[in-house]
């Protein structure tokens, strides 16, 4: 990372994704050199051979040009389709997140900083500590405009939108410090919406987690909010209001009044909290849940979601 290079040519390679993106890029680069060599070579060769003063034979020119044209149409199409298949295949793999990532981090972008939340409740700004060789899934949202989370050394990038959750994942394979950059223009200090991913050995990461002075995990903080914001008044087991119990609900399918079925994921829970019962009527329950839009921050919503998720992973909850 730190070696002084005159004219750097290649970014650091520090994730599983980076290896396959680089392989594709080098493949296409080589192919481009071949095609460029062909086109430039022909232009230069013809320019010399058939320059105005030369005595080269100019008779018997190609009459049936379409023979050639079909040749290079089919040739180009075949090459392009190969590139498409290679790229699309890698892309599907890149965007198919692992079913059970080793670590899930919440990321909130705002003008002009990145806020990260670890499951254990540790919070960071413009810095993200991660263990090496573990799959990491980011759940990202924005508090204002569109941002984009980009780590060049990992070759991964995804826009971070206000009003919805976007996810991305990667597996760091090298320890070190790698830059995070906002890739979508977001205002005056866009160029300074940067940070660092700090990839450490598992032991170092564990050590770092314990030195953050955090006593409550995200889920525990969410549980406190769950009471403070009044959610528990209806959703707890001994409440008098008829509201769905949230134990084990994360990951399950619920049926709505409209007949639609939805998987309870982060986006669904977020919609419930912000839109209220009038929009998300679970079949068999009266639509009495109020909207919390404007009363709750993006960070709080993520803590609540973390709490509801934890109800599913406890012994006795649904798988």
């Amino acid at each position, binding site marked *: 990372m730190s070696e002084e*290079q005159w004219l750097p040519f290649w*970014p650091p390679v520090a994730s599983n994704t980076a290896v396959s993106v680089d392989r594709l890029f080098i493949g296409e680069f080589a192919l481009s050199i071949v095609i460029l060599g062909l086109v430039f070579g022909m*232009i230069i060769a013809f320019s010399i051979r*058939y320059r105005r003063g030369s005595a080269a034979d100019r008779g018997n020119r190609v009459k049936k040009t379409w023979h050639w044209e079909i040749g*290079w149409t089919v040739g180009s*199409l075949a090459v392009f389709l190969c590139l498409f298949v290679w790229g699309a295949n890698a*892309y599907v793999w890149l965007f198919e997140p692992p079913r059970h990532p080793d670590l899930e981090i919440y990321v909130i972008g705002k003008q002009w900083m990145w806020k990260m939340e670890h499951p254990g409740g540790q919070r960071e700004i413009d810095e993200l500590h991660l263990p090496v060789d573990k799959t990491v899934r980011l759940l990202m949202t924005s508090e204002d405009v*569109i941002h984009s989370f980009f780590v060049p050394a990992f070759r991964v990038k995804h826009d971070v939108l206000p009003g919805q959750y976007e996810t991305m994942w990667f597996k760091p394979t090298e320890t070190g410090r790698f830059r995070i950059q906002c890739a979508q223009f977001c205002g005056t200090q866009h160029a300074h919406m940067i940070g660092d991913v700090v990839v450490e050995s598992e032991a170092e990461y564990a050590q770092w987690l314990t030195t953050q002075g955090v006593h409550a995990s995200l889920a525990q903080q969410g549980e406190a909010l769950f009471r403070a914001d009044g959610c528990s008044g209806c959703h707890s087991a001994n409440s008098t209001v008829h509201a769905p119990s949230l134990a084990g609900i994360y990951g399950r399918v619920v049926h709505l009044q409209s007949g639609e079925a939805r998987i309870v994921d982060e986006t669904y829970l977020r919609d419930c909290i912000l839109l209220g019962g009038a929009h998300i009527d679970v079949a068999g329950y009266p639509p009495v849940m109020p909207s919390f839009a404007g009363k709750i921050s993006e960070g709080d919503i993520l803590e609540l979601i973390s709490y509801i998720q934890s109800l599913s992973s406890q012994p006795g909850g649904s798988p």
Partner: protein
Amino acid sequence: MSALAADLPTSYLTEENTIASWLLTRDHKRIALLFFASVTFFFFIGGIAATFVRLHLLNPAGVLLQPDMYNRMFTMHGVTMVWFFLIPSIPATFGNFFIPLMIGAHDLAFPRLNLASWYVFNLSGLFLLYTYFAGGVDTGWTFYAPYSTLYANGHVIGAAVAVFINGFSTIMTALNFVVTIHRMRAPGMTWMRLPLFVWAIYAVSLVMLLATPVLAMTLALVGLERFMGVGIFDPSLGGDPLLYQHMFWFYSHPAVYIMILPAMGVASELIPCFSRRPVFGYTGMTFAIIGIAVISFFVWAHHMFVAGISVFSAIVFSLMTFFVAVPSAIKVFNWTATLHKGRISFDAPMLYALGFVGLFTVGGLTGLMLATLPIDVHVHDTYFVIAHFHYIMVGGTVSAFFGGLHYWWPKITGRLYPEMWARVTAVLTFLGFNLTFFPQFILGYLGMMRRYYAYPAKFQDWNVLSSAGASILAIAYALPLFYLGWSLLWGQRASANPWRATGLEWLTSSPPPKENFARTPTVKVPPYRYDPEDDSFISQDGVAHA
């Protein structure tokens, strides 16, 4: 051919020379020159902004301009260059001047509409200048919501109004071309005898007519949301930010082809003429033009691979993008094959045309890399993308613009330009361009972001190289002002057909009379009937020239 011009002693330039005769002219040739003055003015406005950007980026800490000023500079560069130079550049000047001449018509179908188009263009230009002088706008030329509709502090509405009005000028000119090409071709000028430049302008006019209204709607909705808080794109008002991107790119991807198709048309005129042989595969070239125009409407979401569209849509748009590259590849191979067994001379227009083919090919190949999904994820919004589209739009379109300018200069002005100066400038353009933009491919892959006023110090060397190239490019763009200006006064008088070319525009005198032709010519043969063996040619009226 001289007989056609002999009984018309005056030209469109000398016929009447009062200020009113220029500002109220209905002659397509004079309107073309008026447009030429306007787009040249905006080319240098956009160029000044680019100069500030490149000077600022010499230093990684970004100390020349304040961050807000830097953001306004690159926005000014983008908005000016895209809508006030690149899109009107070739159609409104050479298209306006030569479409009637090439098809044997005395004017465009709607001369008053043509003049109105110039006034509307300048009105939009006034709004743009007002926006800049009032403090500018910092959204980038893409005006992404909700930044543009809620958070940006600049004069978003001023810029949006300028671009909105500008669209009407585009539509008026495009409509005029479509009707003219359909209705006013000389006898014998069948569709398959049209010069490829006419085909390109025809296709681009259709794209303009279909795409520009969508831009107008998009900008109107931005205005509604910013002014009145109607929730369309901003999620906090119940809108969808991705809707903005879909609408914007539904216009702006075809707009990329609005910028490059006319340049392809120019190259297709120059390469056969200076190779003295027919264009390789005329029919294939026309199909490729139409193919590009049609497919250009189905690739827009390749600008949104990391924006949050589904994996399925990303794959579909990646596939469509590979498809649109096929007709472009056909054109590159056909231009190259046109050189085979030619009798090639390297006058300045040909140097620009060959530069165009080379730079367009680099732009096209890097376009394939961007169409490949995982590569795009990495280089999206980096300098790799900046380099890619500058290779297409500056390496491609601007090179072709200068090639066409030199090629048609004798016809437009009646004077020859100094050949040596022009050749040196053409070579300088090519070298300066590559030095400016090739380092940006490397910077982009390294992870240098676009629209950053400060960047990591390790990228400085490449940026210094790029700025050095930009200074060469600036000289190469300014030089023609001097030697072409010189030729206006002291250049050698041009004959009717100095390049010995086959098109109808070369049948009339240089500069042409106001009525274009004394008698409407009759077309007997297809274009590009050059013979490299004995250096003869047959002009489109069927007359053979030894």
